[in-house]
């Protein structure tokens, strides 16, 4: 593993920056259940960091710790060089962290465009009164925000469903709309909770391409949870492997794939 401070260039020519977020000895308990046991790892700027593991390994809990939704009983979360105190969800959003959910959490009755626009909320500064009168600052702000939203709609190729209510969309597209909403916040770290769960091969390929393009185009750091090993190995720069709340592997896809503990836990032990 490379030294913490420096940045390096990957084999495919991308620059991976210094550590932007660090988990130090995180332990998370729900009553008597230890969901996460003393896990440490870091996320570097501009990388695609995957967290994998079998069902119930604590992946989603880990993501919720990163997003600040769960406060771990032990351990520290360091973000951009300083220790992060317990935070409210909106503060996390303001700090530039956006996420998508495993079980899609969109506003079903609203159009795709309106959903994406909600992602711009942290960027809207005009007051309630000004919003109501709809003059000057509020109007200019809406136009500017709409432009950002439209660029993301274009980027994710969802123009054709711009005005469609989300409830009417198929699953794969909803996932994409959720990604659009997260991107609309212009995050520096994007957390994706199983972005490809329940998708067919074609949809997975599309989503993979979008994730790579987002990383490439906007330089967004991405932390993702995923079940599909093939996808993870293709997409990510580094992989953390969890099993029963413990970290059992951490490294490049190649290193992880050849790690015996990972093979046993995740891919199953050969019965012979």
């Amino acid at each position: 593993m490379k030294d913490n401070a420096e940045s390096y260039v990957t084999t495919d020519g991308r620059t991976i920056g210094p550590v932007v977020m660090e988990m130090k000895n995180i332990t998370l308990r729900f009553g008597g259940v230890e969901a996460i046991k003393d896990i440490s790892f870091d996320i570097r700027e501009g990388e695609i960091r995957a967290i994998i593991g079998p069902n119930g390994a604590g992946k989603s809990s880990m993501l919720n710790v990163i997003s600040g939704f769960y406060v771990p009983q032990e351990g520290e979360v360091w973000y951009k060089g300083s220790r992060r105190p317990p935070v409210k969800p909106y503060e996390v959003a303001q700090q530039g962290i956006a996420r998508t959910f495993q079980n899609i959490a969109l506003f079903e009755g609203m159009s795709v465009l309106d959903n994406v626009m909600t992602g711009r909320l942290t960027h809207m500064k005009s007051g309630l009164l000004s919003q109501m009168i709809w003059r000057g600052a509020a109007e200019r702000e809406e136009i500017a925000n709409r432009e950002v939203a439209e660029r993301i709609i274009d980027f994710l190729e969802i123009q054709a469903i711009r005005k469609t209510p989300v409830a009417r969309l198929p699953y794969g597209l909803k996932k994409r709309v959720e990604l659009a909403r997260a991107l609309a916040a212009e995050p520096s770290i994007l957390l994706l909770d199983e972005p490809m769960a329940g998708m067919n091969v074609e949809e997975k390929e599309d989503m993979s391409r979008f994730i790579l393009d987002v990383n490439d185009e906007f330089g967004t750091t991405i932390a993702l949870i995923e079940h599909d090993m093939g996808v993870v190995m293709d997409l990510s720069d580094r992989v953390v492997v969890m099993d029963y709340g413990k970290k059992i592997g951490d490294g490049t896809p190649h290193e992880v794939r050849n790690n015996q503990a990972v093979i046993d836990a995740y891919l199953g032990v050969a019965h012979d």
Partner: protein
Amino acid sequence: MALIQCPAGQPASVPALLHRNAEKFGDAPAYREKEYGIWQSWTWRETRDEVEALALGFMELGLNEGDFVSVIGRNRPRLYWAMMAAEMCGAVPVPLYQDANSEEMAYVMSHCGARFAVVGDQEQVDKITDVKDQLPEFERMIYLDPRGLRKYDHEHLSQYMALQEIGRANRDKHIAELEARQAKLNYDSTGVMLYTSGTTGKPKGVVLSNRNIIETAKSSSEFDNLRQSDDILAYLPMAWVGDFIFSVGQAMWTGFCTNCPESADTMHVDLREIGPTYYFAPPRVFETQLTNVMIRMEDASKFKKKLFDYFMGVARKVGPAILDGKDVSGMDRLKYRLGELFIYGPLKNTLGFSRVRVGYTAGEAIGPEIFDFYRSLGINLKQLYGQTEATVFITAQPDGQVRSDTVGVTCPGVELRIADNGEVFYRSPGVFVEYYKNAESTADTKDAEGWVATGDAGFIEPDTGHLRIIDRAKDVGKMASGALFAPKYVENKLKFFPNILEAVVFGNGKEECTAFINIDLTAVGNWAERNNIGYASYQELARHPQVMQQVQEHVEAVNASVAEDEMLSGCQVHRFVVLHKELDADDGELTRTRKVRRRIIEEKYADIIAALYDGSAQVSTETEVTYEDGRKGSIKATLEVRSAKVFADNRKMAAE
């Protein structure tokens, strides 16, 4: 054939027309494209500046006169400009089908020896990169959408706008030469080269001169009274001659505005927003729209459905007559007016046809019901007949003489001749110069006097002068009994049923005709949904007994109708199968313009055809399929072979 002289003062090249329009209609919109949810537009003056900047950029790259520049991507103003910029430099634009695979591209690009390619996005860059080794002359790609291309090695890549900036920065260096090159362009210089989709063999490069383009654009624009204020929607493949003539030729000649949709999926929304006044679509698009309307009406409330049915009845009765300006009773007129208010108007608005003054369909035969549906709504839909080698126009239907079974009268300047075997020949100012690097094919197609063989069999109706096309001349054959065999005639009748997407009829030299059927997944799928029939795939739905029964009924209905035609009554379908996969251009079974490639289908499915003739009740088969990304797989299936009732005409009945 006497040379048509370019009249004094009339622009003799596409770039010259662009300059004229920039002077004459400077501030009128020339191009619009929906991007980021807003229609962006460019005036003729801005268009000229953009095109010129790109042309200067080409000059900086070292584009020479006579070079070929491939243009590949969906319809976008900047790609149209790329074609014009190439023309400005004295080079020849070669638009390619954007869904062509790497090998098809490699063939075309190496055939013409393209040095540069202007492409839409990463997908096209990847395809060309794959085959670059086969293209020794190829130098550089200019891409439009930078997305995903950041990491690519830019040694052979330039961004479109960046190249325009380079062009602008080097204006002083190249402008004199660029103007000199444009001054050299005349009626005889090549305006564009278009590759035919090739129902048989490799694509051929059809060279069209400025004369072809401008003369055709001029006469056809006059034929339909096209105006500078017209709007069209450019959504058909740029590599297709029709799009080139509508969106470049006629747009340049009359100065109307070309509108490009946001993406292929948003076409119908964009159509509605733009409300074109001049519209072209292949029958398939009209069919899809009609199917959608009907499906949505099924779900409408009872009252609305009643209203719709009633007024559509009125429209069917008097709509076409009103459109043709014929006599209709006052009562019917009143009813039609009411219908316009309640049904036709809103429906046309939803479809995006409110403003259509001239609408055309061509490429394939259109079902009479579909054709009449649109005409009865008051949409002036007409048919035309043409081909790449004619710069589109051979015949077209004049206003007031529109029928679904003919393709119209000869266009201005076109002469027609029917050969003894029924093949249609034409001669016109639009007749192509040659097939590039293929003198042999040129000579086969075009004789010394300039007559061109269409390859289609047809006849001219004596009393109206309208041309009727029966089939491809080479597909017209004889049955074993000596009766005429015209597969397309039967196929078209089959395809007029919404449930049938594609049909291939066999029988040349045989005792009886048989057919392959493809069901229309949208239409049949919708029916299945309404009737609670579950299915997982095309294959499963296609073999459902009720679906088979429906297809059988359609085939028998067609047989009944074919039996009425004295000449073609032998072409009734005796046995058929519903294929286990959709015929696909990716598998080489259809051309990119979705025409059936008979020879390939006959070879590929020889086992099924054999079963159609040996009387077996079912056939097991395995077929190789190619996925969109080029990977191959195979489908195994057991198909049921069905016999259909045939109707002997009266003379034969006694014999059977």
